[in-house]
Each structure stands twice: as C-alpha cells, then as structure tokens.
C-alpha cells in the first residue's frame, strides 16, 4: 500500500508542473489575441489534421523518417568504425588530428550549400549531410572510449591470449560502450537539427518542408502544429534511444549496482 502511495507521489511530483504549464498556456492563449500565438485549441485541431491523419502523416513524416533512419544509421556505423580505427592506431590518429579537428569544427549546417552543389537537391543529399554532421560526436566519443579502456583488462586479455578480433568485440568495444552511447545521444539531437534544415530547401515533403511552407504561407496554426510534432518526434526518438541503451548496456548497469553505486 505504501509502495503504491510512494509511486503515486513520485508521479504527482513529476507531473504537476508540466500540467500546470499546459493549463496556463491553454487559458492564456485563449485570451491573448496575437497573430503569432494562436490558441492551444486551434493548434491541437491543426495537429490532428496534419499529423494524425494517416495520409498526410505519410507525406509529412515519411521523408523525414527516411532521412533520420538512413542518415543516423550511417553516421553511427561510420563513426564507430572510424573512431575505433583511430583509437587503436595511435600514430594514424596523431597524423590526421588536424584534419579531424578542422572537419568536426565545421557546423554541419554550414555545409548545406556545399552538399547541394556536390550532390544536388534531393533526398540523398539530405541523408549524406545528416550522416556527415552526426558522425562526428560518435567518432570522437568512440575514439576516447577505445583509448580509455582499462589497461588491466587489455593485459588480462593478452595473458589469456584472447585473439585480436575477440579482444575488439568482447573487451574494447563493450568497455567503450557507455562513451559511444553518450556520443550517439548528441548525434541524435544533431540529426534532427540538420534534417529540418536540409528539408527547408527543395524538398516536397517532410517536417522541415511543412514547417517552412506553413510559415511562408502564414498558416500559423499549422506551423505551431509542426513545432509540436517535432517536439513529440524528438521525445519519442529519445525514448527509443533510451530503451536501446538500456538493452545494450544492461551489463554495465548491473556492474554499477554490484559495485555499490546505488546512487
């Protein structure tokens, strides 16, 4: 009984402020008569129209999901492979360090015109831009994680004559796992930013396209509905990410709690 009450209290504690703020928004936007801030009721109506109807959902969200899945997936793959390579081969890393530092410092969005020139205005260009911009955090975190592997673990591996491949997959990558996931989380946020930006040019669908067209055609409620949709998309992707992280790193959490890290 007390456990139920405790859970109830925790939920109440976490939920009172968001509920209060939404309520304030609801009532304040009803009374304020601003062009740019339509009432929440209108936004919700527009949201249902644009983002819950299966047909329009496919138009508005389909291309974006493609960019996210393929672009982010490529970024993860390239980032982890290149990061591991550079992390293991120290001389190589030192030789290419100036280039890595310069390339990762370019804000991904600044390369949009360049990618348009090189690859044309289409879906592939968007995927490549997302892949490029999102690969850096994964790459750099993988590099750090691979380098920071506990030397004792490597020594033990050597003593037991664990082969190179096995050592990579059973010792080095798992121990770099938490770092890699931290990088992948940043990459996810960057993926969404670059996706929206890339969709504002020459797209015929997708969230970014919808957002910018609604703005230029002065459909303010529709524009707000796209902001809400992007917020929900970001939140859902983050939840999926957390589930994946929890699954892949479950050994890590177990180990943490066994070490008495009950924080």
């Amino acid at each position, binding site marked *: 009984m007390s456990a139920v009450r405790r859970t109830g209290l925790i939920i109440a504690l976490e939920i009172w402020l968001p509920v209060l703020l939404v309520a304030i928004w609801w009532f304040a936007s009803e009374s304020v008569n601003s062009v*740019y801030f339509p009432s929440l009721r209108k936004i919700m109506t527009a949201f249902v129209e644009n983002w819950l109807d299966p047909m329009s959902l496919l138009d508005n969200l389909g291309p974006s999901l493609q960019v996210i899945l393929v672009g982010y997936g490529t970024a993860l793959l390239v980032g982890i492979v290149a990061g591991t390579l550079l992390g293991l081969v120290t001389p190589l890393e030192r*030789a290419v360090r100036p280039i890595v530092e*310069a390339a990762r410092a*370019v*804000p991904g969005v600044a390369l949009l*015109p360049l990618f348009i020139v090189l690859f044309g205005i289409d879906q592939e260009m968007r995927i490549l831009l997302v892949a490029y911009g999102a690969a850096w955090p994964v790459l750099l975190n993988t590099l750090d994680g691979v380098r920071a592997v506990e030397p004792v673990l490597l020594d033990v591996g050597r003593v037991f004559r664990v082969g190179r491949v096995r050592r990579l997959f059973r010792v080095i990558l798992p121990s770099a796992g938490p770092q890699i996931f931290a990088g992948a989380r940043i990459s996810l946020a960057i993926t969404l930013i670059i996706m929206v930006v890339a969709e504002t040019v020459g797209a015929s669908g997708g969230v970014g396209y919808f957002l910018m067209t609604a703005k230029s055609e002065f459909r303010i409620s529709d524009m707000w509905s796209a902001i809400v949709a992007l*917020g929900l998309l970001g939140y859902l992707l983050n939840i999926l990410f957390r589930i994946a992280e929890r699954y892949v790193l479950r050994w890590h959490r177990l180990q943490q709690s066994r070490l008495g890290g009950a924080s």
Partner: protein
Amino acid sequence: MTIQTEPSARADEAPDAASTPRRLGRLSWLLIQTGTVLLAGGVWWFASTLFPPSTLPPPAEVIARLGELAITGGFWVAIAITLGTFALGLAICIVVGIPLGLAIGANPIGAGSTRLLFDFLRTIPPIAILPLLLLVFGAKFEMVLVLAVSGAIWPILIQSIYAARQGEALLAEMSRSYRIPRAWYIRHIFVPGAIPFVMTGVRLGTTICLLLTVSGELLGGAPGVGFEIANAQAFYDNTRMYAYVLVAAVLGLIVNGGFWAAQRRLLRWHPSVRREQHS
C-alpha cells in the same frame, strides 16, 4: 618455442607503441601532420579537376578569394557578428543555466518536479522554433540569439542538475558534523565538486550554440557568416561560398580551442587535467 617467443614479442610491442610519439619528437609529428593536411589539399585539388570548376574550385583559388575577402570590412563584420552572437548566447546559457541547474539539483522536490518537463523540452529540436522566431523578431541578430540560447541551455542546465546530485554524500555529511558554514561549504566543497560535470554540459552547449548561430544566420537570413554562405550560394559564387565555409571551420576551431583552454584553467586541480599535463 612459440609459447615463449610470442608473449615476449607482444610485451615488446606495448612499450613501443606507448613511446613512439615521444621518440619521434614534436617536430617530426608536426611535419607528418603538415603532410596530411597537404595531402588532404591534394585530394581536394584532384577532386576539383574531376568536377566542373564552377562546382568545386581548386583550393588555391578559394584561398586567394579568402585573401581578397579578408581586406574587406564586411568580412570582418560578419565574423564579429557571428562570434559575438555565439559568445553572448553561451554567456546567457552559462549565467542562467548553471546556477538554476545547481539550485534545482540540490533540492529533491525541484529535481522531481522539473524532470519530465525538461526531459521533454530538451528533446525538441531547437530549429523547430526558427519560423516562429523569424515572425516575431524578423531576420535580426536577436532571432539568432534566442535560437542559440534555446538549444544550448539544455545540456548546461541538465548537466548542472546532475552535477548537484553527484556531490559526495560523505563530504556533505562531514561538513555537517564539523559545522562548516553553509556559504563556505558551497564555495569550497559543493561548487568545485560540481564543476567537472558542469563542464561536460558547457562543452556540449558550446558546440550546439555555434551550430545554431550559423544555422539561424544561414536559414533565417540574419547577418553573419551563415548568411554570407547562403548569399554566395544564391549568387552561384561557389568560390566565395567555399571561402566562407572555411571561415566557419576556423571559427569552430577557435571556439573549441577556447573551450579547452578555459577548461584547463578551471580544472587545474582535477586529476584528468593533471594527468594530461604530466604525460
């Protein structure tokens, strides 16, 4: 035989790998690094011969254009605006985010009440509100500033909340038993303990702040380096566009370097920095 030779060979390998960088010396590494940069330039040059010159100009042409631009006032104004917007945005995030985060994190009720809210707000791609900001502020520097702050504040705020909760319980209890005054505790124990965690957030915030500053200028048409890139592209002047992309890269390098210098100063006492300096 093999049993004996193999481990010894491996044992030789390890110290070798560790000492290689030192044995080669700083100068040789600098030469090798210059070599790779030149090699990259060579790849660029080679690629430029494959594409029509208007799409991918050779590096020499871009550098020459960069030199021409560097003697114009507009070039430096654009850089100053971008760097200024970025710095102001980051400063706002730090001044607001760190104290707020530490205060929320130190208070369990505060942390609980804001967890769900911040978790949701944090995941909204900040670029989503760009059209709204454009309508409200117009294509001005305020628009870019609000955009940058709305994105960069989250990592700083969230890491600060986390930092306040990471404080060593032992230190807190000890301070209480020794009746250490509250102000002294905050100044000498709580804040130094939190800084390493906070710095992680500031590093992420720095990257995101610059990304959003340039994005806002590029998409929103507000003055700055981002606008110059978009503008050059609109005139099909690809050489100028590449020159400004290079500028954006250099800005990124400067900002990154500035962050590491600041962190090294702030965390002089921290093991991670001390270890780095020793090696």
